[in-house]
């Protein structure tokens, strides 16, 4: 029986050396979805992922992954979950094939040779099978890591910043593969800092300072926060930036190329703040759609820093 929820955890907490890294974290991820996991560096994403795949025992809370208890059945979970670490964690001094063979044997898979050959084919790694993994470029390393994490055909993939430091083409290719896996019914939880990747997720959970701030479909997030944005274009924007910083109703200012995006929850106050620039020489003011990036920057700046 396939559980309707691939991940279902409640109240997960973890402290390291007296610092609460994850605090009362809940999450429910339906099977077959791509779930984006966003948050600033050090927000507890990695720790949360490690608790979900049985690598780390939570101090408090609990739950299930693929219907298995994350505390008591961590070994069964490990056999059915694929985890791709943030840092490349395969052996640089082993070849591509040796790395895959090694992982296949750790999972005690039958017919290791076939499994590895198939993975080499599927991930176009066959021409590089004899290359040392340490000599691969960043994009190929990530591809090898994904191949290794999905060798045992896991029902759930936990990917921790899989595309950090990878060029755009390799990233796009990587995401094509993730979507293909999702289509086959694999649930994917992927953490990222890239907005263009975040919008490809079915749902996004945003975590800061160990607490989840929002969990919603990507398109709904700006509306949920209720953030309005106005775009101001014109010459010499720095004085405008400085002036608007003092104006009530403007909660956030961000530069977007040759324009300023000012955001705030009170639409009228925001419009009033922008009005003086409307029609001024060379300036143009227009209503803009609040993007994910503005939404997340706003969330981050508003989040309470409980590390202090």
């Amino acid at each position, binding site marked *: 029986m396939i559980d309707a929820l691939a991940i279902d955890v409640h109240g997960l907490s973890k402290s390291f050396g007296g610092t609460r890294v994850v605090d009362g974290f809940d999450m429910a991820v339906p099977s077959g979805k791509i779930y984006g996991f966003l948050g600033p560096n050090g927000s507890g994403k990695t720790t949360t992922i490690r608790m979900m795949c049985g*690598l780390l025992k939570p101090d408090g809370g609990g739950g299930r992954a693929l219907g298995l208890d994350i505390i008591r059945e961590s070994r*069964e979970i490990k056999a059915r979950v694929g985890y791709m*670490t943030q840092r490349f964690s395969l052996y640089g*001094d082993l070849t591509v094939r040796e790395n895959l063979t090694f992982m296949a044997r750790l999972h005690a898979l039958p017919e290791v040779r076939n499994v590895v050959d198939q993975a080499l084919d599927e991930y176009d790694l066959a021409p590089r099978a004899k290359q040392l993994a340490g000599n691969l470029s960043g994009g190929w390393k990530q591809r090898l890591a994904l191949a290794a994490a999905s060798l045992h055909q896991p029902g759930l993939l936990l990917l921790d910043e899989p595309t950090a430091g990878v060029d755009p083409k390799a990233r796009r290719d990587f995401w094509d593969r993730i979507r293909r896996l999702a289509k086959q019914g694999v649930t994917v939880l992927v953490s990222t800092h890239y907005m263009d990747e975040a919008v490809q997720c079915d749902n996004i959970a945003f975590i800061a300072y160990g607490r989840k701030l929002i969990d919603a479909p990507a398109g709904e997030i700006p509306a949920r926060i209720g953030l309005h944005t106005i775009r101001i274009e014109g010459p010499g924007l720095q004085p405008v930036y400085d002036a608007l910083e003092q104006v009530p109703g403007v909660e956030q200012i961000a530069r977007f190329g040759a324009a300023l995006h000012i955001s705030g929850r009170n639409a009228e106050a925001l419009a009033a703040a922008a009005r003086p620039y409307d029609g001024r020489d060379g300036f143009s003011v227009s209503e803009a759609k609040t993007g994910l990036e503005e939404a997340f920057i706003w969330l981050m700046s508003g989040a309470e820093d409980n590390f202090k």
Partner: protein
Amino acid sequence: MKSLSRILAILGKEFIQMLRDRLTFGMMVGIPVMQLLLFGYAINTDPRNLPTLVEMGDSGPASRAILQAMETSDYFDLVGTVGPGSSVENAMRDGEAAFIVTIPPGFERALARGERPQILLDVDATDPVAAGAGSGAFATIVQQALEPLLGEITPPVEAVIHRRYNPAGRTALNIVPGLLGIILTMTMAMMTSMALTREAERGTLEALLSTPTRPHEVMIGKITPYVVVGFIQVAIMLAGARYLFGVPFLGSPPAFLVAVSLFILVNLALGFLFSTLARSQMQAMQLTFFAFLPSILLSGFMFPFAAMPHWAQAIGQVIPATHFIRAVREIMLKGAGLDHVWPQIWPLMIIFAVIATVAILRYRRTLD
């Protein structure tokens, strides 16, 4: 079955990595060869012709015969004679003489009367190993020198040696068993602690543990290859000892195997313990050297154990190399069997049990 297949997977992987890391592999094979040649040929711990002063309190045919015999023995090089009461102490303090022979006044007459007069040998003990052979041979030399004059009166004089040291003398025969202990201590503890720390340092342990692999499978799989390496090192050393230096192997091979296996295990456990303490390979290496120095200095390898002060002997007793070196010397050179070396075997067992227990307890804690 699955567990075994996983252990074999880790084991095989470890061998591939070991062979691919040329430098480390070269070190594991090169260190025994290099040390053997160095200690066997270059470092002469049985030096001869050490400078010797004679304080002549008396002179006559007997004292002349003794000095003659000393000179021909090769141990002593008579660089000068001094009259009674001169500054012989200074000569030794300044390093001009390693030995000072004192023939007391009235020596000849006392000898003729059969009174067993004393003859004194002062030994510079600052380098006890260097002076050991000469002082050890002194009494025999004196005895043999006087035989033609007095016949086989036993013993005609009383040879007194101040700061007498290491009467057995030291040769390549004695060095080889010691080297076995030292090299195994260094390479086994260092290689295992570094191999284990490497996984954590490079983040590969995370990937390993995200599979159903159990911690003890990682441990067994990673450590076993180094047992094999240890035996290869032992084989290299034994072959070198036999064919380069003609060191005999008189005792029981099974007893030797027991001692070597146990000692390798102790050092692997030590390396394993270090890996739980160290955060990086660099730290693992530093810890190994921390353990390595006392093994060299206090195990009886460098300096005779019995000559160390009591506190140093006490420390030496908890150093595994101390017991191993003793056991191997007894087996190889004195032909001992397992029953004879049992007093060295059981302390090794206790040391192993203690180290392994602490290591496993710490390993559990570091995983989380």
